[in-house]
């Protein structure tokens, strides 16, 4: 009886060692509250005004990977409006919204482990994100664990800004950006 149990235990340990739990893809995105697969709402509500000139929003997500190679890609839809009044050329469009992405390493994560890919390495527009657009090249793991509570992670901060220009048609505009963490 004892021998098979020891055998099973060895088999189990062998499985864990050869195929660690996260071997499929230890990739994780959370928000700052460590919620997996977060939905981070970016909301702007503004009236055009003479000054200040811009309205900005910023949000952050945390990336964890136990692999040295990973990628962050993004896909955008909109923004578009169904009720904006006026010439559609004066609707708020993706190229009206500036986008600044920054990356910081926390814990054991290597400060050079996540590299922003051009044009996201400097200020750009939201329109730079299209379908499956390559945003970050991850060259180093954050640590050996993707647990949501692991203090080692790459923090990606996104800042969107919109000028309070009088050209924009009044109305409600909706869009969405989906960020996906993948193995190359």
């Amino acid at each position, binding site marked *: 009886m004892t021998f098979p149990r020891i055998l*099973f235990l060895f088999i189990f340990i062998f499985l864990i060692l050869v195929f660690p739990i996260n071997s499929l893809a230890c990739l994780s995105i959370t928000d700052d509250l460590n919620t997996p697969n977060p939905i981070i709402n970016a909301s702007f509500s503004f009236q055009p005004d003479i000054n200040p000139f811009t309205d900005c929003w910023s949000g952050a997500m945390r990336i964890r990977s136990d692999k040295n190679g990973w990628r962050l890609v993004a896909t955008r839809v909109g923004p578009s409006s169904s009720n904006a009044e006026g010439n559609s050329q004066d609707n708020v469009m993706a190229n009206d919204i500036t986008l600044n992405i920054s990356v910081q390493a926390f814990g054991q994560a290597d400060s050079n482990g996540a590299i922003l890919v051009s044009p996201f390495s400097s200020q750009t527009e939201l329109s730079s994100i299209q379908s499956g657009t390559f945003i970050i090249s991850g060259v180093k793991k954050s640590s050996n664990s993707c647990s949501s509570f692991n203090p080692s992670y790459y923090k990606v901060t996104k800042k969107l800004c919109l000028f309070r220009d009088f050209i924009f048609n009044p109305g409600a505009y909706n869009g969405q950006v989906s960020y996906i963490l993948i193995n190359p």
Partner: protein
Amino acid sequence: MTTQKNTTSFFLVLIVSCCVFFISGDLTASSNQATVPINITVAGKLIITDAENDNNSSANPTLNVNLKLVPDLSNSTVSGSSSVRIRTNLNSWKLTAQRSNLADPLVNIDPRDIALNFTTQAGSKANPNAGKLLSPFNKAADLSYISTNSPTDVLIGVSKTSLDKDPENRNNWFQLTSNYSVSPDFFYEIGEWNTTVSYSLVSP
């Protein structure tokens, strides 16, 4: 019998191990996405500023026009003006005016004696046709055309004032200049006569 039991147990442990392994892997792999819904609400805005000090601090300005006249043989009129700048992203708007008569009855100036001439102009990134002067203000008029009883329509706005993007709001203004003039007639009594014209930008 014992061997069969052990084999069954072995496969059970193997299946459970595989399940733990795959479920854990799937759970980790499934947390690889973040969604950022973007919601933008742009509200309508109507703003009037002082053309001489065109910024937020001069919104809803009070502009004084002083006409000081000394009767004289020459017939040159005394005039003064004020200019306001209008900005709006609404495609339908109007500017109304109402006058409160503070006239000193001892000075026999009549509102009809004060000529009123409106002109409009637009900044380089504004639409010069965004607003149209309404009759009778589209030609020489006088102050009596601005009622003391109710708002009088002066300008009708047919489009937003911006023609192009101007993030710093420097050249996207539509300007209304009001010119008031009076002749230095010996008919008028000595004294001071005042009136206030209030302009309001409204969305019909």
